[in-house]
């Protein structure tokens, strides 16, 4: 289970990384519009479920730590070191991942980069661990629980003390919770954690979200915000009546605030979905990005750079090309109201199947690059 969870985390994590650094020959698709919402909802829900799974897994193998003699051979010593790497990276990955969801950064490194590289170390260690334990895993999956000892460090068929080689195991002297009871408890624990947190992305379950970090109903215009206007320090520039959108291309031009309203006739229902595992569908209205690009002399194959009034922040710009170009809106309205300042007033990008942070807010410049 834990192995599957880590596999799911790795794949959904890489899918998200691709959003941030795509290869130019394979632009991010625009369909399905809920693609990123699904993969990142799964990533964070699985990550949260991994916390109980990991703790119980470590508890169940904890006695092996005290196996005596501690180092039987060079081979075992190496295995112990790799296991220490596996356990340490797994713990740090789930803890820092969770803290990132909570927007708390008590560490000096940049979270996304370290989370990604550490994931390679973790998944590599898991593959190695599975390779080492493969005979035990195959045996454990085939054998009946009472006849198998699947948690020994020594492969069962090389271990004369293994009860698999000496018949059925008697009941333990102090019958506490059974193996089946333990598995039920873990299943229920994972279930409770997922059910009470997943409301931050499965919106109908919001009321069940006793432990959900985000609450979409409490955000302005029914949508949470990640980077606030105050954090971004864009108040003056974004609320200025003299705001203009500069469109740079073969035929450059400018749009003023009054120019926006008559063009803001395109509507779309698109989710805004954050890599931190929350998402919510919303009704957007605005200008078609493609129309704006075509008017500047661009084409449907152009690569577009969108720039925010915000200064000094890594995500103050983003690129759109390929299928997303014809699907993207330059939004002026959200859920029937003029865009809130925290949502990117006067103009923001919203595109399907796209990481929330790449839907650049407070736009004032669009460049048609090719």
């Amino acid at each position: 289970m834990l192995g599957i969870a880590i596999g799911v985390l790795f794949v959904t994590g890489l899918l998200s990384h691709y959003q941030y650094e795509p290869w130019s020959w394979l632009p991010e698709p625009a369909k399905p519009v809920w693609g990123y919402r699904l993969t990142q909802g799964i990533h964070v829900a699985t990550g949260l479920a991994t916390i109980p799974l990991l703790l119980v897994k470590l508890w169940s193998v904890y006695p092996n730590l005290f196996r005596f003699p501690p180092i039987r051979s060079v081979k075992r010593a190496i295995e112990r070191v790799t296991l220490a790497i596996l356990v340490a990276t797994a713990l740090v990955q789930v803890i820092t991942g969770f803290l990132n969801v909570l927007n708390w950064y008590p560490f000096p490194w940049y979270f996304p980069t370290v989370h990604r590289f550490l994931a390679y170390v973790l998944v590599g260690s898991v593959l190695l661990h599975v390779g080492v334990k493969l005979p035990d895993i195959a045996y454990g999956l085939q054998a009946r629980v009472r006849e198998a000892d699947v948690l020994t460090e020594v492969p069962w068929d090389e271990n004369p003390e293994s009860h698999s080689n000496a018949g059925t195991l008697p009941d333990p002297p102090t019958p506490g919770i059974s193996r089946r009871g333990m598995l039920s408890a873990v299943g229920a624990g994972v279930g409770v954690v997922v059910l009470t947190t997943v409301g931050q992305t499965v919106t109908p379950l919001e009321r069940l979200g006793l432990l959900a970090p985000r609450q979409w109903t409490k955000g302005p215009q029914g949508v949470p915000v990640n980077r606030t206007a105050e954090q971004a320090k864009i108040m003056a520039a974004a609320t200025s009546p003299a705001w203009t959108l500069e469109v740079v291309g073969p035929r450059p031009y400018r749009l003023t605030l009054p120019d926006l309203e008559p063009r803001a006739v395109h509507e779309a229902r698109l989710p805004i979905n954050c890599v931190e595992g929350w998402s919510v569908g919303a009704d957007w209205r605005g200008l078609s990005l493609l129309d704006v690009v075509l008017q500047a002399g661009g084409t449907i194959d152009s690569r577009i750079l969108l720039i925010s009034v915000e200064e000094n922040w890594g995500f103050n710009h983003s690129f759109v090309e390929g299928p997303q170009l014809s699907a993207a809106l330059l939004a002026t309205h959200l859920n029937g109201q003029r865009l809130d300042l925290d949502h990117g007033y006067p103009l923001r990008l919203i595109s399907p199947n796209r990481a929330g942070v790449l839907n650049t807010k407070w736009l004032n410049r669009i460049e048609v690059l090719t």
Partner: protein
Amino acid sequence: MKAWRIILAVSGIALAAFGVFRLVTEIAPHALLALVIWLLAALVLHDAVLAPSVVGVGWLLRRRISDRARRFLQLGLILSSLVTVVALPMIFLRGSQPAVKALLLRNYGANLLVLIGTIALASLILYAVQVARDRARSSTGSAARGAGE
């Protein structure tokens, strides 16, 4: 099997080495040092503090509580502690973010109590069902013996 083991181990080592290489070459030394400290701390805190306390609690329960009751107590405790691990950082960080982010606004402490209360109730009901079943079994057992006489 042997081929699979080699493939898994080699690709695992390669992937992990690639991750370490990227970390060492792309992360600033002071951040890398902090990361190593975090990794060691996670290992030590888990293996020397968290796991022994769980084992200690288990040992205490085994000494003090009857086997039948202990099973249901264990069930309740496992569930509650798993939920608590997730809730604790949120209780600690509640209200730390600007309101518009709609993040960490709930009363996680109260919600955790609700969850633990529900878990306790469920464990208690399961325990009561078990006790009732055992009683019914022992009384039908003695009834059968009575009929045989």
